[in-house]
């Protein structure tokens, strides 16, 4: 198992975009992984779904714009971006509220995504 050439890395991003550095740390790690051309999965659940909301304007708090950074994911070859349907539902949000194109997963699919990964980063 050691030194295996390819592994699937799954990132769970569970925190909102600006209050802490969790969201940006997770994103940095996703981008670093993409460079290694691994199988990268990026899942937003819990309050992490707030990172995907439209109309984020972060100039006022002098922070990088998480939404804009996420919009650039395809440029870095990160295509497998998922959002947990239950988390959206619990926050009265739908895909129309989101700026980022993601694949909606039901609970069973979310479970499968995480359990089938070789390594899970859970931030």
């Amino acid at each position, binding site marked *: 198992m050691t030194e295996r050439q390819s592994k699937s890395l799954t990132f769970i991003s569970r925190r909102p975009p600006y*209050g802490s550095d969790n969201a940006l740390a997770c994103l940095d790690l996703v981008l670093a992984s993409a460079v290694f051309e691994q199988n990268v999965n990026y899942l937003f659940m819990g309050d992490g779904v707030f990172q995907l909301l439209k*109309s984020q304007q972060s100039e006022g708090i002098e922070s990088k714009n998480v939404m804009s950074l996420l919009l650039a994911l395809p440029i870095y070859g990160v295509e497998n971006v998922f959002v947990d349907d239950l988390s959206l539902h619990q926050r009265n949000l739908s895909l129309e509220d989101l700026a980022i194109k993601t694949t909606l997963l039901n609970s069973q699919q979310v479970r499968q995504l995480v359990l089938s990964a070789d390594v899970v980063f859970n931030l």
Partner: protein
Amino acid sequence: MSHLHTLNNVELLQDCARFLSDGDALLLIEDGVYCVTQAELGQLPDSITVYCLQDDVDARGLGQLAQEHSQKIGFEGFVGLCCTHSKIINWF
């Protein structure tokens, strides 16, 4: 005299609400502005004025919801609220 409560974490709203009295101000800052997505915020008595820090609302894309449930203010407004209330209780 009435009090100013600041709150930066949705999970603290319930604890904070126990101490809100007529004429008090509740200022949502940082991730506390996500309280505008919570039903509990609407259940506060009308005698409590809810404010949101404008920059934090805008960053998070919550403008519409925040407008319905609170008054947006800047840091000058924040300082003003500190002066017009006799004490500040920070929930973080």
